């Protein structure tokens, strides 16, 4: 199949409520499900749609993201023959562009250059906070069938599936049958308990994108899905909603991040997210199989390669290169790469970021609603002291 889409990923997400996990990484680089980072999910959607290139708009230096993406070859986004990942740092985008006038100048230009040069018919705009498995080809076919100006992805959700102070919005459907959209409402203003969550993922023709880009520039507005819906409605053009029915979690705070990981221990959720034409792709790392010792007791848990497990692990997710000693007990927890849990330690409702050391006999117990998070490189002592590096 030939490449048909030019994807634009806006990776400037709300990250404050995800601290300390986002201290040194953007939301897109958050580790997920033992082997992945959140960016792997939209990237794998692009891979399945055989996209040749992608433009990334990021804030800050983005080096954790670069180190993961490298040339983009894992996702077919690299090639000597055209294509590639084009990265654009917009620091903090429009929000405080005054402070970053140097970058501001290129905000519209970078979008313009990428889209005009891409060999593609459509532009797809997406982000990394809506953890999901969107089939871009189906979205494209829907868009073509409807002969839509712009098509936006939504999912029917209940209010309690989102953070109580969510910043996201709902789509108002004009005619349920026809899926045309009549407006966008902040969720805080929505009265119903069940609504159509705007997944801020859009497809539109290259030509329409360039029209709207020009309008955004004239009005000094952000280039994003919500503004583009507005432009389209104002012009009286058709805006259609494409319903997504698979697994979705909006990663907006520690709780939703924790829940999303735990959701993977449910086979239906796991399959919804991981079952694709191709597997979800992540940068491959050389590794040895995980060894489970004679004393290991495992119940409903997921592991990556390269671990050594001698203790008890229940209802938890364990990332690469983790060592769990005999008599250690881990339950309802997320243990990231390179962590080490010594004998007799007890962890429940805990998130350990990378390279955390839990000393002999240490105990940490959070709650499902409020898991304890230990930042990268931390050390947890038996006396209850936590030392952050």
């Amino acid at each position: 199949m030939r490449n048909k889409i030019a994807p634009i990923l806006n990776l400037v997400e709300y990250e404050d409520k995800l601290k300390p996990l986002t201290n040194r990484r953007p939301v897109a680089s958050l580790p997920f499900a033992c082997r992945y980072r959140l960016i792997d999910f939209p990237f794998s959607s692009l891979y399945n749609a055989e996209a040749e290139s992608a433009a990334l708009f990021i804030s800050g230096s983005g080096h954790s993201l670069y180190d993961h993406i490298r040339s983009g070859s894992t996702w077919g986004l690299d090639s000597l023959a055209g294509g590639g990942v084009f990265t654009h740092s917009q620091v903090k985008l429009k929000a405080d562009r005054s402070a970053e006038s140097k970058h501001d100048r290129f905000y519209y230009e970078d979008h313009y250059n990428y889209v005009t040069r891409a060999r593609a018919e459509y532009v797809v705009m997406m982000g990394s906070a809506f953890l999901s498995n969107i089939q871009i080809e189906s979205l494209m076919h829907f868009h073509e069938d409807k002969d839509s100006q712009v098509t936006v992805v939504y999912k029917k959700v209940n209010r309690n599936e989102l953070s109580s102070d969510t910043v996201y919005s709902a789509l108002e459907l004009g005619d349920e049958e026809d899926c045309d959209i009549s407006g966008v409402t902040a969720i805080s203003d929505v009265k119903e308990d069940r609504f159509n969550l705007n997944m801020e993922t859009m497809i539109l023709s290259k030509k329409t994108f360039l029209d709207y880009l020009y309008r955004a520039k004239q009005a000094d507005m952000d280039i994003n899905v919500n503004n583009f819906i507005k432009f389209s409605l104002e012009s009286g053009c058709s805006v259609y909603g494409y319903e997504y029915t698979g697994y979705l979690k909006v990663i907006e705070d520690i709780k939703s991040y924790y829940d999303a990981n735990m959701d993977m221990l449910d086979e239906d959720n796991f399959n919804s997210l991981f079952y694709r034409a191709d597997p979800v792709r992540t940068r491959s790392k050389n590794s040895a199989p995980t060894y489970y010792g004679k004393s290991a007791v495992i119940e409903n848990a997921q592991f990556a390669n390269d671990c050594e497990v001698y203790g008890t692990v229940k209802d938890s997710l364990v990332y690469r290169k983790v060592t769990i000693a005999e008599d250690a007990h881990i339950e309802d927890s997320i243990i990231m790469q390179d962590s080490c849990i010594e004998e007799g330690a007890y962890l429940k409702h805990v998130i350990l970021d990378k390279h955390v050391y839990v000393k002999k006999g240490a105990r940490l117990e959070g709650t499902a609603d409020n898991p304890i998070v230990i930042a990268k490189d931390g050390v947890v002592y038996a006396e209850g002291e936590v030392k952050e590096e």
Partner: protein
Amino acid sequence: MKTETVAMILAGGQGSRLGKLTKQIAKPAVPFGGNYRIIDFALSNCANSGINDVGVVTQYQPLVLNDHVGNGSSWGLNRHNGGATILQPYSSVDGEKFFKGTAHAVFQNIDFIDQKNPDYVVILSGDHIYKMDYEKMLDYHKQQAASLTVGVMPVPWEDASRFGVMATDRTDRIIEFQEKPDNPKSNLASMGIYIFSWPRLKQYLVDNQSKNRQMEDFGHHVIPAYLRNSEAIYAYSFEGYWKDVGTLESLWSANMEFLDPDHDLNIRNRDWRVYSKSPNTTPQFLTSSAKVKDSMITDGCYVAGEINHSILSHNVKVGKNSVITDSFIMPNAVIGENVRIEKAIVGEGAHIYDDAELVGTEDDIAVAGYGEEIGGYSDEK
């Protein structure tokens, strides 16, 4: 850039003693240890020894092997103008070039080696499990000003007659070579690892070919010719784990040994890693009904049954109430419910249906072949 050393990995053999495991794939491509194929050990040794120019000579059923080796990037060989090059039979103005033996395979690929213009050629076998620093052996070769250095390891005297053994003088110079002798004069067995000074070897291969002298096999022809001509041949002793996995029993027992967390190979040692081509797959999922003891499990596995002292390679599925003991399961095998597998090797993509049994003994390992289906009812298929 001048290349000092080229390694030639001879990976063309069928490995017929592995029976149905090597019907569709070459022996060096047979899976090992959960995450590897046999040839990964030789390729990783090259990479770790700083040898980046590697010719992989393939001939028998090469599709899987070639796809696995690629340009060598999984082993980091493709940097600095190096890389793995697949060498298969071809034709030229002189006619068709199939490979009739170890030395003949090198003879047929002289053009490849000459392109690299090396001082030394390291000849390796693609089907041994070991970790070895060829650079140290090369240093020894240079120090002795040898024209050939043979990697040897001491074996128990009673086993010596199963090997090619090297009788040496006090300086470790080889004075006699006995192929599977009844009365061995030495217990130093050849590991099939040779370092040759290339110009000399080339001369032997080309001269003898032009005189129609048989020069097809290193053990049978080249070493005896070197000995006859009093070339400086030295033995380089290797101590450490080394295993030829040429039979079903040795493949099985090598995997069982590999399970030991204190195994000599030390697979988790980051200073001498064994690299492989990693598949893109999911995490390992051990459900609430899983019981896993003293076992290695690889990414992509889904385990609802009981695993004792076994290795599951990537993407293996094990259903509820199935019990796998003392076995090695190759990638993508699917094992249903209520299955019993013991002292067995299950081939890539094999399907063991519900309620089936596959039970062997240490002397007679049970085997499911590559893609084989075992059990099940005809109306279900």
